[in-house]
């Protein structure tokens, strides 16, 4: 079908099955995902020690190449790289090169000339990390830290990692993803990750205006009613609703959204007893989630942030670390 060698898996996994880049969860095998989660598990201990460093990326230079503002993701990538003993360079492009008319490829070549080993890329264009991966030198790796509406693989990995720490058996797990799926790279990656892990069911719950066309073809059931949609659900993932969605005539108001799709304690009671609540952050309290739920005993929101460091350490060390690390699993 695709005659141009453009398959994403061709790009991110080498002939021996090793991860070269991490661009998307799509096309990764269950073994790849489980390996990352297992290695991440081994790093959780590192993060709890008083000296939080391992020398796996010593002498390597990791560049945080962010074309879009981000606090949490950039910070956790930076911490993860530093705990692996890498040198870290933060490049905030929106404020530098592109405003001077430099092309993405020029920026990339200049940074490459400084002998960097890994680019952590965030970009507003879907496919930007693919583009970069296709143009970097063979010894340089690319990790997608979020591209357009397409993918945010490390977020999805940390989410399944967090879920796995609470329930081991994905095959009995029903997960609901609630909110703006249309504009969400997080949701797309979560759907792939949960399906790769063999989840019993992934549901997406949103008004039609926030659901992409043919989303069911990605392996989800579609629900447009939150109360019914939460029935029998073990994990509820709430997505962030960006305020500019009101301007595009996608929704009438935050108030109506909260009334119909906001997660309240009352609604949470309709899910399976003990159901877990997740959110990729940052949360809009009173828009998609009630504070009492976000801060409640079933919320894993802060745990997700903590786990983000171990998972990103795992991804970076598996891609750029010494070979023996591959046997950790």
């Amino acid at each position, binding site marked *: 079908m*695709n005659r*141009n060698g453009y398959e994403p898996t061709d790009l991110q996994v080498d002939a021996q099955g090793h991860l070269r880049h991490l661009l998307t969860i799509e096309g990764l095998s269950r073994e790849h995902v489980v390996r990352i989660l297992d290695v991440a598990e081994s790093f959780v201990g590192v993060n709890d020690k008083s000296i939080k460093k391992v020398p796996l990326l010593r002498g390597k230079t990791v560049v945080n190449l962010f074309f879009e503002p981000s606090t949490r993701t950039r910070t956790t990538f930076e911490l993860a790289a530093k705990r692996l003993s890498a040198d870290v360079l933060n490049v905030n492009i929106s404020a530098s090169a592109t405003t001077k008319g430099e092309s993405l490829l020029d920026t990339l070549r200049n940074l490459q000339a400084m002998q960097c080993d890994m680019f952590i890329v965030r970009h507003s264009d879907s496919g930007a990390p693919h583009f970069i991966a296709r143009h970097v030198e063979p010894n340089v790796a690319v990790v997608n830290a979020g591209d357009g509406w397409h993918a945010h693989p490390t977020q999805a990995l940390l989410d399944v990692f967090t879920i796995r720490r609470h329930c081991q058996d994905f095959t009995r797990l029903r997960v609901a993803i609630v909110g703006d799926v249309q504009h969400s790279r997080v949701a797309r990656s979560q759907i792939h990750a949960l399906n790769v892990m063999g989840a019993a069911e992934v549901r997406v719950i949103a008004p039609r205006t926030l659901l992409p*066309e043919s989303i069911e073809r990605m392996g989800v059931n579609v629900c447009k009613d939150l109360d019914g949609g939460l029935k029998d659900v073990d994990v509820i993932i709430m997505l962030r609703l960006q305020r500019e969605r009101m301007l595009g005539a996608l929704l009438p108001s935050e108030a109506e959204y909260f009334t119909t799709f906001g997660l309240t304690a009352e609604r949470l009671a309709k899910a399976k007893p003990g159901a877990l609540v997740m959110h990729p952050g940052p949360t809009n309290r009173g828009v998609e989630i009630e504070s009492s739920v976000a801060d409640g005993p079933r919320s894993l929101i802060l745990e997700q942030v903590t786990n983000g460091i171990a998972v990103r350490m795992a991804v970076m060390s598996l891609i750029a670390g010494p070979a023996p690390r591959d046997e950790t699993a």
Partner: protein
Amino acid sequence: MNLHIRNARIIDPHGKRDEQGSIFTSGGQIVALDTPPAGFVSERELDASGLIACPGLVDVCARLREPGNEHKATIASETRAAARGGITTLCCPPDTDPVIDEPATVELIHRRVEDTGLSAVVPLGALTQGLRGEMLAEMGTLKDAGCVGVSNAWQAVSDTRVMRRAFEYAATHDLTVFIQAHDAWLAKSGCANEGPVATRLGLPGVPVAAETVALAQMLELAATTGVRAHFSQLSAARSLELMQAARASGSNVTADVSMSHLHLSENDLLGFNSLCHVRPPLRSERDRDALRAALRDGVLNAVCSDHQPHEPDAKLAPFPSTEPGISGLDTLLSLALKLVEEGAITLPRVLESLTSGPAQVLGIERGSLSVGSRADICLFDANVEWEVSEASLLSAGQNTPFMGWSLPGRVRAVLIAGQLHEFPA
């Protein structure tokens, strides 16, 4: 020069001919078929054994990038690529820079073609001044200067009253309006067909409705104003149903499709292949099959290259930030032959859609091998394969998703107004 082409398989869809024979040309015209006219002394004999002779191809939509974007391509480079591909007449839309909204621009193009060009170029004039969709362009003057129709290209005319009056005014001057059916609001910021592939890739979608909503509106305006309307590069199955319904109720409307849309689908975007970033977007495989069927059945009148050459940088960016468009002159005939090879269409019918079909749409006396017509002739070998490569492409734009493909058919010679250009094997 008096030229005698012999032993060719002559396929002239206009004259419903498909048989071996001879063509005699003199003074830039076809003067006889099969038997020479009295007193004809040939100065050159061309043995076309094993070759097919058909009318020179007429491309109803090709951007030559001149004037205004000569860093992408020029009239010199693109008319050469066209001739090499058997295309002897090109129609260019008015969205050049400056826009073709006054006779000076038409004259400039004509002069450049005369000085540097090879294949003939017939321009479309602007429908509104500067394509801004506000005031009517001087269509009468543009027609006198040589424009064969009028169009607003991809620029929206959001005021339907302006559109209606532009149609009426074009009809007054007996000009065909060429319409890119496209609702700018529904298509806003989209770069891929709204569907499973765009959803998977997280690309902003262009729904089929962006085409059909505009098409339905324009068909209605065309019907009420009685203007001759031609719809460019239809992409969706539903659009073809609307066309058929309009024809059934007596509307004088025609339509074309781009060659890329007959071969590719949204699936070719997987992996963010920016060479497949094109407007209208590549749709589903079902749409592609419907387009093939519509071409077969005559619902579509012509196939065009929708040629849009780009400099390499235009495609060297993440998919949504790349410029849309495919370079299509070099591959037009071969991709048509590939359709025949795949059993999608007969050879005479696909040649009709590349010769007399588009000539009729443009209202020009081209695309036929009748005695007395201009000697625009394409001679090609259908039985050879060639590989699309940087070396084999003549267009300044190398932006083709067919790069690396092996395609059937190579042009061995063209006659442009009786001038012979040969391309030895």
